[in-house]
């Protein structure tokens, strides 16, 4: 590998703060993504706690209806667009070039643009609380006509924010695809690529496929709300039934993006789990190809299921049946993954460090979220549970119990690679157990509330029989808050005092552990020729054979 001549960096860009503003290093951008999304995670979490406080008792007056609707909208939008997708993009930024043995992503400047657009989009959304009329109030799905009739500028800023975030994600997706297709290390064929990289490949293609539909829908919504440019007023009626428009058009555009978006968040989480489980079970992943191809399968099928969010709009049953069958079909590749993960544990040498605890916690709760999805796919049953707290419980089991648990597995696993220091294991384990218990206490009762008839997105309720579950859920959510504070404390404490570790503290399989922790700006001095999906495992074995010793590690 020929050394490239480095252009000298101007002095003002070398400062401790300034260097982060001008960086095009994928690792630093990855860390910026992860840390920014953790800040938004805290903000979104506080919004959730405010809502849970309001719902703890019947007819409470902690929040006004308008404040509640603003929070319910911005909490959802924040968690999806500012937390889960970008934190996974952050992991991808940091890891993909390292995992495939590249020096950086294909377009480092475009990568920086992606991050700064993301931050801008996030700020626009957060600051929209201060807009005239408050923040958007029509839910994260922003169905017209409601979203067109809301006065004030909150909804317009919501549209602006999503437009910016969409641009950011498209740029990021192109970058990942070009990087993965072109910059893999010698010998790294498609079936020797780490499973996390597979998941990012599918994640990126899906973003490219569905984000344009969201952008189109957002533009129509903006034009329907009316815009004035230099004396020209534009006012369309795409979703306005009074003028011949169709409110359902938005729902199609939104969910054609919105359902794949779920898998855009879940697939990289699956990828993290597929990296963590083998390392802590001391075995290769069971059924590599099945896991990789099921990722592609889920990505493809997920684009054919969108109308299962629309079973109650009055479609003919033939159409409902089509979407029921496609939605159920997603369960098949998902099941393949779950069983392959279980088989990876079989006959392993399991050790329960924090990343592994989170990965196992993910397995145990994600299954619940997956299984409740079958009720929602069966459309007559969906007619009963749609838009109720059952759905709220379902998607928190997949997105919190699934994705957030996987993110914590990833944070504890790759933290030493990012910063050269381990997070505290004792605090980490406490955090896991508290979070595991409180998560279930918070969200399990919500299934039951939904079955008893409590709709989602209500700022209050008058049934006193719903109070027990709601109070339980609220108490659980406070304890979740404590568990997340423990993580913050862990980060603060180990930044200075965490034990420093070498290149490969977990004796892992993939290339990112070949370089130093943290890696140098150019990542690798040299990259070994890749002969399997576990290059580092192969390397250790070759070393052992060369040394002629039977010593382990």
């Amino acid at each position, binding site marked *: 590998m020929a050394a490239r001549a480095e252009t000298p960096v101007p002095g003002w860009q070398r400062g401790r703060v300034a260097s982060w503003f001008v960086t095009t290093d994928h690792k630093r951008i990855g860390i910026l993504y992860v840390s920014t999304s953790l800040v938004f995670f805290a903000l979104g979490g506080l919004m959730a706690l405010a809502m849970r406080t309001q719902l703890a008792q019947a007819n409470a007056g902690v929040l006004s209806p308008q404040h509640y609707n603003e929070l319910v909208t911005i909490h959802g939008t924040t968690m999806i667009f500012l937390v889960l997708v970008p934190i996974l993009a952050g992991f991808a930024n940091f890891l993909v070039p390292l995992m495939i043995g590249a020096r950086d992503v294909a377009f480092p400047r475009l990568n920086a643009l992606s991050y700064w657009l993301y931050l801008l989009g996030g700020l626009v959304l957060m600051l929209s609380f201060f807009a005239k009329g408050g923040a958007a109030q029509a839910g994260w799905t922003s169905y017209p*006509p409601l979203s067109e009739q809301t006065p004030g500028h909150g909804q317009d800023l919501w549209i602006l924010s999503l437009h910016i975030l969409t641009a950011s994600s498209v740029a990021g997706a192109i970058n990942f695809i070009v990087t993965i297709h072109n910059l893999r290390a010698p010998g790294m064929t498609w079936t020797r690529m780490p499973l996390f990289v597979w998941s990012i490949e599918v994640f990126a293609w899906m973003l490219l496929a569905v984000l344009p539909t969201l952008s189109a829908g957002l533009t129509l919504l903006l034009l329907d709300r009316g815009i004035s440019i230099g004396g020209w007023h534009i006012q369309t009626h795409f979703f306005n*039934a009074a003028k011949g428009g169709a409110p359902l058009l938005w729902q199609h555009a939104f969910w054609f993006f919105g359902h794949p978006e779920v898998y855009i968040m879940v697939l990289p989480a699956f990828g993290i789990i597929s990296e963590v489980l083998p390392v802590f079970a001391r075995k290769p992943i069971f059924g590599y190809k099945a896991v990789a191809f099921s990722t592609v399968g889920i990505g493809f099928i997920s684009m054919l299921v969108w109308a299962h969010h629309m079973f*109650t709009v009055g479609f003919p049953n033939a159409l409902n049946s089509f979407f029921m069958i496609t939605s159920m079909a997603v369960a098949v590749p998902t*099941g393949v993954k779950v069983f392959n993960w279980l088989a990876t544990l079989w006959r392993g040498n399991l050790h329960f460090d924090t990343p592994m605890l989170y990965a196992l916690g993910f397995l145990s709760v994600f299954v619940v979220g997956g299984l409740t999805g079958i009720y929602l796919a069966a459309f007559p049953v969906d007619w009963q549970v749609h838009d109720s707290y059952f759905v709220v419980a379902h998607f928190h089991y997949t997105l919190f119990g699934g994705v957030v648990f996987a993110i914590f597995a990833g944070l504890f696993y790759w933290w030493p690679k990012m910063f050269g220091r381990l997070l505290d294991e004792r605090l980490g384990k406490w955090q896991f157990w508290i979070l595991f218990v409180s998560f279930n206490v918070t969200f399990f009762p919500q299934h039951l509330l939904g079955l008893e008839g409590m709709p989602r997105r209500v700022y209050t309720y008058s049934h006193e029989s719903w109070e027990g579950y709601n109070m339980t859920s609220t108490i659980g959510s406070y304890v979740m808050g404590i568990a997340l504070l423990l993580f913050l404390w862990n980060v603060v404490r180990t930044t200075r005092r965490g034990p420093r570790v070498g290149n490969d503290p977990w004796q892992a399989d993939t290339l990112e552990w070949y370089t130093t922790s943290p890696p140098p700006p150019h990542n690798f001095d040299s990259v070994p020729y890749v002969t399997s999906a576990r290059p580092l495992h192969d390397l250790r074995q070759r070393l052992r054979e060369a040394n002629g010793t039977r010593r382990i590690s």
Partner: protein
Amino acid sequence: MASSVRAKLLLAATTLALLLVPAAYGGNGGFVPVTPESPNAHDIRASYFFITFFTLGVFVLVETLLVVFIFRFRRRRRPRFQDGPTLHGATRLELLWTALPVAILFLIATFIFIELPGISHVPSAGATGRAYQIKVTGRQFYWQFEYPNGVISIDSMRAPAEVPVKLTVVSPDTDVIHSWWIPALGGKIDAIPGIVNTTWFEAKPGFYSGQCAELCGLEHARMLASVEVMPKSEFTAWLSQRRAQQSAGTSDLGDEEWGGVCAKCHGLAGEGGIAVRIAGSAILSDPRALAKIVRNGTSTPRGTMPAVGSGWTDDQVSALTTYLKEHPPSGS
């Protein structure tokens, strides 16, 4: 090591128990949809049970394997980085756990298709051959019911027992999307501007309640609905009596309009809520001004009032003006 694993299993079991306590505390527990009182709700619940049979099975299988593997293959005294056996996969197993979910989902889909006609088709009533029809209009933030003879009621519907009742569910072009949902009487159906949807129920006498299930604005949570199913003769008597009263201006409609349409924002005593205080306002005692503001809404610096009564008949408007003349809101 073993003891710490046991402690953790105990913790997991305790969590499960903690989850069940509030469940047992709440009536039917919420583990199944509310007790169905209409054939379609009944068939939906049957589908729910059928699916639960399989999901519980898969849940128990996966969680058991997980716990057993965690316990059985934990490290114990083995060296930390000692590798397990290099097992790359097994094609037969892959085929098995691809085929098994396919088979289960096939069974579930088949069951749904068998139940579907009973859920979505309105049965024809024996003698008359036609279902009783009621028009349901969802509006911010009230439900308006229109009976075949022109009787109108707000938020509380009355319906004949043991006859299929077919509901036409709509929302005015200028309104937003709502969703009609009485859990005991079947699934929900959206009220969407520009679209006419239908659903139905057939129930024994009783009182059933529900609420709007699609976020429709500030008072979405207060958009409640109830259905009182009465013996057929009683219903017929009520309907003709109400028809006469409505023409005479003595029905409960004005009361229902005040409580369902005005009070959700302005307070039951007109004391103000998410909207301004209206008790003592001159408009309330001026029928023409009141009719104008209810039909057209208004926009003032103090806020915007939507046209909650756009499209109301003269009967409807006068019911409200008469009611307010007789019962001026006290303000507290």
